[in-house]
């Protein structure tokens, strides 16, 4: 009952909005959000479709706990076939947008076709309409949100939009909602751009949109959940105070901080760009980069960083629009914009991060692509003439310039918009792209953390840290401590993480709760919200089903076991320094074991028995 049971189908070509009932059998099998929308997508599109073809679809989806008092119950996802990877893409975002969509009465919005001219979808409760967006095309996410709110005179409208990056089909363009929360990875924003869809604007005021199956049990379960989050050191203290950025020094000390396109595993400037540094008063203006922490909808953790730049910094000296506070760097962004290309200027990172939010592109892939471009430049493959300026590792100016060009789609920014795989291939060195399935690694070195390497290699949406966060056991000791270089038990642990993550991503809550919550904390909340009997076993089965469904889609799209791989640098070039010195990835040891625990053939294909067990 925590579903609204309504799906909004928007045919962009015909300009129509129609309502259909949610497939409740699928809701029972896939829960919601990631699982449910993926089920719709794989049932409706040809896996081999060109991601930019009008035949690809784009789905905005909420979970059963989205828009409820469950802590962090504000998530939504965007599901499509991703243009960066060609694989299934599901990007998850917080902010306030997802809850508003639910309050308007929708579990899901399915966009199909492509609009002949720029439009945005305006949803006011049950009423949905496509509105001309000619005046918004070419505008940033920030301008778009401001304009839509003012135009409809409703500051409470929530907006998810693409910026110029999405319009220009930057292959890692994001969809940004609430100014600085993003469905960031895999280029979902580029698919939106390819459909001439500038934004989705929602106002939800319905009180009858959905019900809790058992309100009393729901309050008991969610209050218990909040107490666990508050009492836990990580979710109650660490994340609110320091945000994810507190990891910068941890990962660096551990020798797992990929630096300069993974040439190194430790960054001498890590401390300068760390969460601790964000608290320090700047010598220039005596103020700290960090203004405060901010929460997404319903979140009692509040890890979000709100930063204000030094107005005297070279990047924004003459640009007052960046002098106010906005979303600051989170760990992955700080790493990608910083360590990945050797830049240790926190203010420059903040500026580039602002640009990523303002024009909607993924700082991880962007930053990693800068690192790859810098390596090509240092090798002499990329020249100053080609780029337009010098591009050595560690050049703050160059990183900032590339961010500006990529945002606007100008000059070398157009090539930057292809991501590192296509960039490196274009210049004859595909091996220098630090990617899996063409998607860039985030901030953990796959050699230094063996389990994380396996997670990258097997992730259905390409390299990513959010689908089996082996950093938890390998670094943080959550739920148990595993040695970074060990391989034993990691495939099974990874599978469990991947399946659990699929459940969390399908429920409408944030993955960060799992630093404190186990399935036994989450299950009662789902049980009380949703009709049906949701045991922990059933939930894990749902998670496994989702994982396998995504896998099947990728296999049908043409991926094979060969794509469950890491770049040669991680397989052959040993880590140069630190505690993991000498390490290379032992993927070849772990992968067969992983396939086995997954119930897949040695070629990475789910066996008939697995398929039957999961009903995929």
């Amino acid at each position, binding site marked *: 009952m925590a579903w609204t049971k309504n799906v909004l189908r928007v045919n962009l070509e015909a300009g129509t909005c129609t309502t259909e009932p949610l497939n409740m059998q699928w809701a029972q099998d896939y829960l919601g959000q990631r699982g449910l929308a993926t089920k719709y997508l794989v049932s409706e599109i040809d896996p081999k479709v060109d991601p930019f073809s009008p035949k690809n679809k784009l789905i905005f989806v909420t979970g059963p706990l989205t828009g409820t008092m469950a802590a962090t119950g504000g998530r939504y996802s965007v599901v499509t076939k991703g243009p960066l990877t060609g694989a299934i893409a599901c990007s998850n975002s917080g902010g306030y947008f997802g809850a508003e969509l639910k309050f308007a009465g929708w579990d899901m919005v399915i966009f199909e076709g492509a609009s002949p001219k720029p439009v945005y979808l305006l949803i*006011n409760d049950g009423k949905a309409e496509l509105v001309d967006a000619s005046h918004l095309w070419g505008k940033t996410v920030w301008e778009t949100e*401001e304009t839509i*709110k*003012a*135009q*409809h*005179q*409703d*500051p*409470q409208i929530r907006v998810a939009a693409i910026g110029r990056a999405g319009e220009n089909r930057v292959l890692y363009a994001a969809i940004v909602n609430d100014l600085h929360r993003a469905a960031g990875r895999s280029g979902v924003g580029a698919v939106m751009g390819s459909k001439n869809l500038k934004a989705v604007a929602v106002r939800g005021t319905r009180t009858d949109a959905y019900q809790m199956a058992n309100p009393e049990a729901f309050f008991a379960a969610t209050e218990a959940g909040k107490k666990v989050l508050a009492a836990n050191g990580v979710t109650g203290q660490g994340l609110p105070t320091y945000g994810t950025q507190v990891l910068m020094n941890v990962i660096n000390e551990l020798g797992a901080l990929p630096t300069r396109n993974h040439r190194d595993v430790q960054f001498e400037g890590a401390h300068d760009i760390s969460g601790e540094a964000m608290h320090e008063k700047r010598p220039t203006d005596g103020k700290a980069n960090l203004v405060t922490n901010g929460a997404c909808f319903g979140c009692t953790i509040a890890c979000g960083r709100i930063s204000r730049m030094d107005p005297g910094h070279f990047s924004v000296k003459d640009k007052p629009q960046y002098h106010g506070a906005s979303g600051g760097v989170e760990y992955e962004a700080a790493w990608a914009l910083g360590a990945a290309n050797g830049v240790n200027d926190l203010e420059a990172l903040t500026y580039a991060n602002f640009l990523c939010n303002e024009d909607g592109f993924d700082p991880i892939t962007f930053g990693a692509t800068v690192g790859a471009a810098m390596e090509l430049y240092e090798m002499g493959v990329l020249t100053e003439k080609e780029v337009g300026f010098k591009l050595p590792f560690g050049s703050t100016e160059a990183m900032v310039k590339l961010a500006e060009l990529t945002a606007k789609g100008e000059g070398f920014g157009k090539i930057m918009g292809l991501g590192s795989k296509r960039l490196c291939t274009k210049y004859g060195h595909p091996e220098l792209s630090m990617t899996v399935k063409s998607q860039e690694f985030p901030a953990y070195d796959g050699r230094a953390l063996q389990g994380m390497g396996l997670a990258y290699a097997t992730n259905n949406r390409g390299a990513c840290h959010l689908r089996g966060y082996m950093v938890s056991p390998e670094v943080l000791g959550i739920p148990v401590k595993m040695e970074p270089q060990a391989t034993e038990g990691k495939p099974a642990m990874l599978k469990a993480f991947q399946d659990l993550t699929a459940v969390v991503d399908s429920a409408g809550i944030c993955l960060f709760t799992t630093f404190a919550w186990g399935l036994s904390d989450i299950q009662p909340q789902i049980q009380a919200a949703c009709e049906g009997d949701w045991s922990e076993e059933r939930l894990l089965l749902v998670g496994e089903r989702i994982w396998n469904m995504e896998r099947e889609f990728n296999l049908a799209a043409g991926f094979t076991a060969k794509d469950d791989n890491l770049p040669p640098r991680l397989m052959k070039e040993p880590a140069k320094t630190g505690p993991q010195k000498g390490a290379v990835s032992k993927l070849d040891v772990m992968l067969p074991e992983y396939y086995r625990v997954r119930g897949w053939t040695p070629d990475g294909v789910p066996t008939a028995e697995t398929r039957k067990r999961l009903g995929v």
Partner: protein
Amino acid sequence: MKHLIIGSGPAGVIAAETLRKADPAAEITLLCGEGEPPYARMAIPYLLKGEIEEAGTHIRKDADHYDRLRIQLVQARAKGIDTARHTVDLGGGRHLPFDRLLIATGSHPSLEKIPGMDLPGVHSCWTLEDARTILAQARPGTRIVQMGAGFVGCIIMEGLLSRGVDLTILVRSGYMVRRMMNPTASGLIRKWCEAKGVKVLTHTQPRGISAKEGALQVDLGEGRTLPADLYLSVVGVDPNLGFLEGSGIEVGHGILVDAAMQTSVPGIYAAGDVAEATDCLTGQRRINAIQPNAVEQGRIAALNMAGKPAQFRGSFVFNVLTTLGLVSSSFGEWQGVPGGESTEVLDESHYRYLSLQFDGDRLVGANCVGFADHVGAFRGLIEGRVRLGVWKQRLLEDPTRIMQAYLAAAHRVA
């Protein structure tokens, strides 16, 4: 001390209650002129809609409210005032003495000066009795021609339409609610009405009304006539001043009062729609016929009558209106002031409009259509003469950020 209050609208009732609090021993008499218990005209539209019973319009709900407060209700109309003898003439030889007098007689509908206004089926919509008549006559299919689309004209439309009538609105000027709304806002309201099936004829003024074959014929001139079963004349109101003749109480458009709400005759006060008090924005005296103003003036007058000096801080014009479900509001100098700046946003297809008027870095006026959240803050900003500082520019760029501007500038929370 004998306190006499003429008029049992909101100003009169609040005054009586305030007097009781401030002067527990006093005699308090409240004159009701319509043979009804004290009621609120603001509630009449909802009576027409059938959402409330007549009792729902009563200003106080407890049957023994006035008895409990020892407020004597007298059903009678004042015919005159003898300021020397301190008596009010009720006609028929009846006189009521007073030590302090409050005139809160409100206003009455202006009558069009055209032939046929006395015909059966021609009414105003102002009193409970008017409402009863309309309720009895307005049925599905009843053809109603309503002259006037001011505040009253607009708020009664929903009640009429809810009865399934066929409604035509005549507007003398080019604009509905032109005393509250600028042409853009007014145009939106008109468009909304038309979309709801109401015919709106602007620049139209009947020459006369005649009765023919059981129906009314409204002569619009140039050979045009409109048949009607019911003709409602709601062209405006005038203050009830007639009984003041010869009293020596100074009158302009209304009864002139000072900051203590006292008239030119000591001991005699006036409040509400009949009083002409200082407008705090313009400094000019004017009648400000709105509910919050009436009760505030009633309260201030009562305090002074009880010997507790109090000053009316001045008022300014603001009002809120619902036209067939479309909420709109108007504040202060919505037409703008010389040398001032303004900003507006319009979303015509969704019937939303917001216009702000500034004088320097202060908000002095606003028009809102379809924008109803936190509108009280407009009053706070305008009446408080709040300096907006940097928020002035932000509002010029995006007027919808009014609440942020209010919190930041008035409460300094950001």
